[in-house]
């Protein structure tokens, strides 16, 4: 136990020290992106691990990013208030879509397609309200000069790295909290057999809604954070079906059932995209998704537990 704690402390210290030791802005940028997306993928896996395959998380992320930015630009509401409001909006959306789904036993294919409709709606609303949101051309939160705590805008990448690192760590803590709670057993029972779980006294609808809302809140937060960091959001980068599928893909490749799986997925996908981009420049347009697509198919056929999941399972077998 003490050894575990020590290794956690060392890993944490190393991660915090990275931007101070290695002062390369590009690498720091990549680390930040990996951390933010890892958090988003972790949020997806909170549901995905229990067989609730949502293709609507692009919608939650879009709500998080756009509500925050719109409140800031049009009403001058600080992101400190805007982000919680955006999360509330995403949570309400999750309740609105989740409740009928869970109440009427919409699972599997159906659930995936209904949530797919959700990301479609959010994307269409963003595009249709182009007078406010800039439509498909994207949207920029108004920049303040220099770093401003109240506007949650920092020019310094190290600050962003530390914020993203903190958020990512909190995401893992939430994962651990769910992992150790009774809800986890309830959800696992539900994913095995809903009727049996209900007969055993599990409130199926309530448990599912709980995990869905947690997941939606986290995803919206990831979207808002991404918008604040990049200072540019567009329907293609934070919303819609492509983003939803991208989340599923990264989480599945890394491993949905283990805490660090989505993080591994984020590292692999972002490094692959960046390597291709740097190595081949504009010629590489499309190639990263081409490779993702093939990998996703291969992983689902041959390694459904994902890379990290399979490695951990093998280590456990050896013992």
């Amino acid at each position, binding site marked *: 136990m003490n050894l575990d704690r020590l290794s956690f402390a060392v890993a944490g210290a190393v991660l915090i020290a990275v931007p101070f030791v290695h002062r390369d802005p590009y690498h720091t940028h990549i680390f930040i992106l990996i951390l933010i997306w890892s958090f988003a993928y972790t949020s997806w896996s909170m549901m995905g691990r229990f*067989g609730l*395959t949502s*293709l609507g998380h692009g919608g939650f992320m879009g709500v998080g990013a756009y509500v925050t930015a719109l409140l800031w630009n049009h009403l001058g509401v600080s992101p400190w208030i805007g982000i919680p409001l955006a999360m509330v909006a995403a949570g309400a959306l999750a309740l*609105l*879509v989740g409740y*009928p*789904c869970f109440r*009427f*036993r*919409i699972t*599997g*294919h*159906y659930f*995936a*397609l*209904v949530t*797919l*409709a*959700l990301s*479609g*709606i959010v994307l*269409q*609303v963003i*595009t*249709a309200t182009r007078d406010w949101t800039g439509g498909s051309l994207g949207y920029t939160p108004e920049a303040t000069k220099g770093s401003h705590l109240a506007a949650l805008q920092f020019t310094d990448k190290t600050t962003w790295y530390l914020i993203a690192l903190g958020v990512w760590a909190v995401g893992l803590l939430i994962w651990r909290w769910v992992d150790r709670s009774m809800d986890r057993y309830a959800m696992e029972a539900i994913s095995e057999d809903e009727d049996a779980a209900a007969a055993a006294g599990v409130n199926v609808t309530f448990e599912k809604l709980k995990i869905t809302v947690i997941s939606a809140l986290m995803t919206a937060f990831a979207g808002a954070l991404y918008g604040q960091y990049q200072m540019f959001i567009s329907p293609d980068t934070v919303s*819609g*079906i*492509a983003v939803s*599928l991208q989340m*599923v*893909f990264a989480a*599945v490749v890394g491993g949905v059932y283990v805490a660090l799986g989505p993080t591994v997925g984020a590292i692999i996908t972002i490094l692959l995209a960046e390597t291709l981009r740097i190595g081949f420049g504009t010629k590489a*347009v*499309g*190639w*990263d*998704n*081409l490779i*993702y*697509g*093939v*990998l*996703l*198919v291969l992983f*689902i*056929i041959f390694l*459904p537990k994902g890379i990290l999941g399979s490695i951990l399972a093998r280590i456990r077998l050896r013992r």
Partner: protein
Amino acid sequence: MAGFLEIFDVYLLEAILSGILLGGVLALLALGLNLIFGVIDVTWICYAELIMFGMYAMYYLVSVYHVPYWAAAPVAILAVAGLGALLHLLVIAPLLSAPPINQLLATGGVLFFLQSLATVWFGIDFRNIGIRLPVLALGEMHFSYARLLAFVAAAIGMGVVYVFMKKTYVGIAIRAIAQDRQIMVLMGVDTRRLYLITSALGGALAGLSACLLVLMYDVHPFVGLSIGPITFLICVLGGLGNFVGGFVAAFVFAEIISLGGLFSDLEWGYVLAFGFFILMMFIRPAGLLARRS
């Protein structure tokens, strides 16, 4: 005031009629997906990307190689049918015993793959087949021949599928499989062969949709993202695997989009349709025509 109302009514009628025309195309789109779902119990998330490849096939045959449209269409339909069979053999067949959601996700991977393949091969330019069909003027209303042709072709396509499913041995076997997967194997039906035929048929329907859509819309690698979601919504609204339900849902959806677009932008038509969909999930979660259990 009276004059205003008259004009308004003409527009309303025009919107309703073009909604019906749109409905025919949407019904065709939904039919292919419903067929796959009903028989193999798999959702092809990449269905619209198959259509996109069919549209590219039409574009290259007609605009680049100057094949006449009527000769190019069967080639494109066969090509997409082949693509459907290939998709089944390479991706779905190894996953048949896996949880259904894995099959759906694997076809999600195929979606990524096809989309990027189109980007790499064809570039991201919008391409147009360059056939401009005249506009039909009916009184004060205007309809494009492309839509009319699409509606008629969709109706014929659906008729052919209906006859095939009702009258031929293979069609009856396919419907029987959709009813009971386990029993049919005991009856000596080769499910693998039937699955393959169904996949090819689903692909052929995607190919037919492609031939019609290419007359109305430009082709680009991401065109699937605008066709796909609406098709899935229609299928779910009608009840996945329920052919008649999908047919009805297609027309309901088309009318909502068309009428919504009349009062505001086309996007709001879509938003309305999506909102209607969510609402219907509360009221009739198993599909429009399903009996409540």
